[in-house]
């Protein structure tokens, strides 16, 4: 069964450093998402991406965040200057273009900012 993959599974970084989280969505999917879950809190929507542009973003997704689909397979989330509060599990998800089809999630990247 096709699956969403994410790398790395864990990343530790120093405050102020840039990090790039990578995702490979399912190949025939056209919508891509990033969600995050701070420890002990809810899974929160960050951003959705379609046709090479941001479709929707949350209040959390400020200028420190950016997303990109650099090639036909990868989807990345960049945090330019990490803060302590960016420590969280980041999930990538993808879905076909058909309405209310299932969003498939990757296993997540656990980011720790020191």
């Amino acid at each position: 069964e096709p699956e969403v993959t994410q790398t790395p599974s864990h990343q530790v970084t120093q405050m102020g450093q840039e990090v790039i989280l990578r995702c490979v969505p399912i190949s025939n999917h056209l919508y891509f998402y990033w969600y995050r879950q701070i420890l002990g809190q809810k899974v929160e929507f960050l951003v959705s991406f379609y046709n090479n542009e941001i479709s929707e973003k949350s209040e959390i997704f400020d200028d420190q965040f950016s997303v990109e689909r650099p090639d036909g397979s990868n989807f990345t989330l960049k945090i330019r200057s990490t803060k302590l509060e960016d420590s969280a599990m980041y999930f990538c998800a993808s879905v076909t273009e058909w309405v209310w089809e299932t969003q498939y999630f990757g296993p997540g990247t656990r980011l720790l900012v020191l």
Partner: protein
Amino acid sequence: AQSVTQPDIHITVSEGASLELRCNYSYGATPYLFWYVQSPGQGLQLLLKYFSGDTLVQGIKGFEAEFKRSQSSFNLRKPSVHWSDAAEYFCAVGALRNSGGSNYKLTFGKGTLLTVNP
């Protein structure tokens, strides 16, 4: 804005016992409701979803959920729990973009951690 409440942070049941996980939602329009499960080290896996029609929906792994509009609830049930069901369970409501299109975002509850005793 939509929201989801899962009142139980942690539930422990014995193997073979029945299970009900509670979920209440707040949404101004017709809700599209989902249950996801997360096992350690795994991503979120869809158990079932409700869009319309029959208010009792069947999912994978023997789970079912019932949509009750009058109670704004979408509780997850399983008649007999297996040790492999130990995981964290998330209820979510889907919302389409106001500007249209088929893109929807999920709003999750905090999750319920299920422990299964042998």
